[in-house]
């Protein structure tokens, strides 16, 4: 059979390949996400009002004791399910691709590790991520014990007059800390260490869920307006202008005061107003990439707009989107902490902001209640910043050229 010559190729046959060829990542994601949704559905339908879903599951399946020992006593609410789904998204669309092409990963990793602070930040974020994920499973929620209020951390001590009952020994009018509460306790007697660990979960939830929502809306708006062009682009961008000038904090306070708000509402409102910047950023990136030759080449060879966007525009903007999102996360963490400090946060959860707010009046004689969460929050925000910066440098080809000369 003579080799296929250019002019003899039957283009119709090729053009038809617009079938949905989902990559294995997407397949894996859909499967795992469905199983989580099934669990959530089960929880909604069968588990009794106050019973934990795993408990109910164990009861029905008759597996009983083993689950209890696993300590999955936590009763996951809607937020937890959403958090797990965003985690899956993160695993299948960020970690898996890195794993799938090691060469590229090594290349970026080598460039990334040149920036030492970024590596340290990544390490710290991993600690927070692990703490956030495993904390609730290993440690039970902080218990309130009024008589154990204001206990000092293990190697420190406090004036006995400020403490109702000292758990450690009292030496020379000063009460010393114990290992039972390594970082001391709040006025309500809750362990600060346990609170900080549970705070990690809240911070991770905020970080992942908000970025997912912002990314989803931002990317769609950005690519659509970049690609649609004309009056659609104009309209979308004007809408983005409006969203950008919304006084977000004020609106959240309004909603809070009229309809009451928990962590879920906070995440929803703040991410619904925060995607403006991402949309603009994605649009500018998409526009500049749309001009690249390879996009024209793809279009000439019959690729549909969706395919061009899906295959070329989004992956190329992906790197800068990730960078932009990492720089958004600190803003959300700060916002949650600020609201908690104002006494408007969701007082039912153990976030770092709640802890700082709880300990702020005791700063003079029990500084650890505020310092522990304050420092952890500070390190996490700093880490996100350094990580964002390092990603910016690592993924931006131009900086490579400059340094080389």
């Amino acid at each position, binding site marked *: 059979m003579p080799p296929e010559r250019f002019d003899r190729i039957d283009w119709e046959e090729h053009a038809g390949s617009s079938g949905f060829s989902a990559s294995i990542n997407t397949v894996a994601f859909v499967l795992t996400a469905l199983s989580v949704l099934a669990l959530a559905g089960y929880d909604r339908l069968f588990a009794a*009002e106050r019973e934990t879903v795993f408990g109910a599951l164990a009861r029905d399946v008759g597996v009983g004791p083993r689950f209890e020992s696993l300590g999955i006593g936590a009763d996951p609410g809607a937020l937890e399910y959403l958090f797990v789904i965003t985690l899956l998204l993160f695993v299948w669309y960020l970690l898996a691709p890195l794993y799938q092409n090691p060469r590229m990963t090594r290349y970026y990793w080598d460039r990334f590790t040149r920036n030492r602070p970024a590596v340290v930040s990544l390490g710290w974020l991993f600690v927070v991520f692990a703490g956030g994920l495993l904390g609730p499973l290993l440690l039970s929620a902080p218990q309130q014990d009024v008589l154990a209020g204001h206990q000092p951390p293990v190697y420190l001590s406090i004036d006995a007059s*400020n403490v109702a009952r000292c758990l450690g020994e009292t030496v020379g009018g000063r009460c010393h800390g114990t290992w039972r509460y390594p970082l001391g306790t709040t006025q309500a007697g809750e362990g600060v260490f346990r609170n900080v660990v549970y705070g990690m979960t809240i911070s991770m939830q905020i970080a992942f869920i908000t970025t997912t929502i912002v990314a989803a809306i931002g990317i769609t708006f950005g690519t659509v307006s970049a690609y649609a062009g004309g009056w659609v682009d104009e309209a979308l961008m004007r809408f983005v202008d409006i969203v950008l000038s919304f006084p977000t904090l004020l609106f959240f306070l309004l909603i809070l005061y009229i309809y009451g708000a928990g962590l879920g509402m906070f995440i929803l409102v703040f991410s619904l107003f925060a995607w403006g910047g991402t949309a603009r950023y994605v649009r500018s990136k998409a526009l500049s990439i749309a001009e690249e030759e390879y996009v024209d080449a793809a279009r000439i060879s019959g690729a549909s707009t969706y395919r061009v966007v899906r295959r070329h525009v989004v992956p190329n903007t992906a790197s800068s989107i990730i960078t932009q999102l990492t720089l958004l996360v600190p803003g959300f963490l700060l916002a949650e902490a600020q609201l908690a400090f104002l006494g408007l946060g969701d007082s039912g959860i153990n976030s770092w902001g709640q802890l700082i707010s709880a300990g702020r*009046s005791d700063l003079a004689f029990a500084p650890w209640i505020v310092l522990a969460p304050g420092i952890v929050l500070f390190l996490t925000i700093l880490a996100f910043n350094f990580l964002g910066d390092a990603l910016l440098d690592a993924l931006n080809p131009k900086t490579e050229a400059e340094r080389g000369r």
Partner: protein
Amino acid sequence: MRRRSKIGYGAGTRVDRRQWLSMLGAVGAAGLAGCSGDDGGSPETPDNGGGVRGLDGIEERPTVSGTYDTVTSASFTTLNPLYNTESGAGTAIGRALDQGYTFDADDEYVPLLYDMSTDDGEVWVFDVREGLTFSDPYGAVDAESFVYQIEELHQSDWALTANATDWTGVNVERTGKRQFQAELPEPQLLWPESFDPLEYPIPKGVLEPYVDDENVEGLRQDEELLELRFSGNLGAFVLDEWDRGAGTTYTRNDEYYIQDADNWSDLFSNAPYFEGASISVVEEQASRLGALETGEADSASVPPERFEEFDNDPDVSMLQIPQPFNRILSVNMRDNGWNAGPGNLFRYVAFRQAIATAIGTDDLIEGVYRGLAEPHHTWQPAWSRWYPGDDEVPFFGTGDRYGAGPARELATTAFDRSAFDYGFDGDRMVTPEGDQVTLDVYHSAGQETAQLIAEYAAQELDDNLGIELDVQAIDGVRFNNEFWTATPEGGTDTVAGESVRWDAPTPNNPGPRSVTSNEEWDMSLVFGLNTYPRNPLTNAAFFDGANARYNPVGYYPEFDAGGLFERARTAATEEELAAAFADVFVELAREQPYVMLAFGDSLTGYNPDLRGPIEDFANGWNAPGWHFAE
């Protein structure tokens, strides 16, 4: 005959008498503290006082020096005397405008602007002091300055003034230039102690234009009233400026009428002894305490966990003042209460006693209040003159009446009485369907002590009664509007066997148990109530029958409450009065209409050089005499 009575209440405080919010949610920013203790109670208002470290040891007249600066946590909604309902704003007004009268440390009636006397307790004669003048052009203070505002405003249906409810059914008429009298619907020996007749002098000239066209909006917003420009010689200081966000500043009033008041010793002949005064709004408790330490503030309230620390601090002198506002766990006996299952177990006295038994008051007082609170077993603080005495009052939550055993015993007797078979499955209380009993408890958002107590109660009920309590924070205003009050409907219901009609329903007692608020709730720590140690008769508004004026929880007394309060009303001598009250309080202790927890003391720190504050309930009555030791 001058009426004699022992118990007084810090005058000049226009606290909404019946209820105080553990958080000033209804009227101000987060965090009560105000200028009173962390849990409400008698704010130190510089009116007058005597006693221990007070002024009695001083002979020669003090010199005028320095300024008296205090800090408060919530800004003032209004300084308009007719419409103010906040204790913080009351203090701010009190600096520049005195009220009718007050009570000294021995609870003696001390006339300020007018003297009150009565023969039969039914007709009271008011004699206005001579020489009281408003700022010009409003001229002298006379009977009309009080009668006009009572008849035209308080008893009108359009003015909606703060003191409107005090004068319902009272017939007031002028009997002289500076004398008027009031005829009560039924005799009250302790009428002044109820603070109903306590009024500010308001010039008629300011009010007339608004009364003519019933313009309530204009009256609320009147500049003369808001800036207290008419105060003349009626206040220790003159209001300079009210900066809404920052607080108020005053300068000394040189012709303060007390200087030549005959019934005040010449110690007060050049009162007040400060060049000026100021009240600063400081929301951060840490800053208020910092100001106290650095001397920028001459007085501030201190939380229990730092009382001892400040007490040992040479730069601060601490006062622990008992106060009558209680900390209670209200249980909703109406139809929208008890959402854990069928029926409503709160309606049975035994179940309420079980709850009281389950919550340990000793640990509560030691843990939350660091020992700086009085136990609360009946509707009177122990130091009150009308307290029946420890031996007669049944105690719950302490001694042998505390713990899982006695609590469960009481709970089971309640189960037997109820038509549904609730029970215990192991250590968990379960509903007839077998699920664990789960209730919710609301506390005011942003209030540390309230949250602490809610979580403590939840833990105690879980350990001792196997009830799971879900702690919820809520904003005071929202709780008041959606949970606590309801639109009055009235109706009839059988209470302890006889039929009772709700003919004058109020939002706080909209009708029988079938009439409920918009939102359902089980337990609440949001509101504490006043126990009126000076005039316990005022408690009739809570308990003299299921249709009493203030009964949001739908409590149906099972003892003859009406009869007992009638006996007290008609008592001729104080012994009779004391005996009647003793019976009332023993019954209330037994029936626990509200699960009674504690009376937190008001803890206030003062500038050590300040002479005048006393560790007594009437602290502040002799404020005009306060001064800095040289």
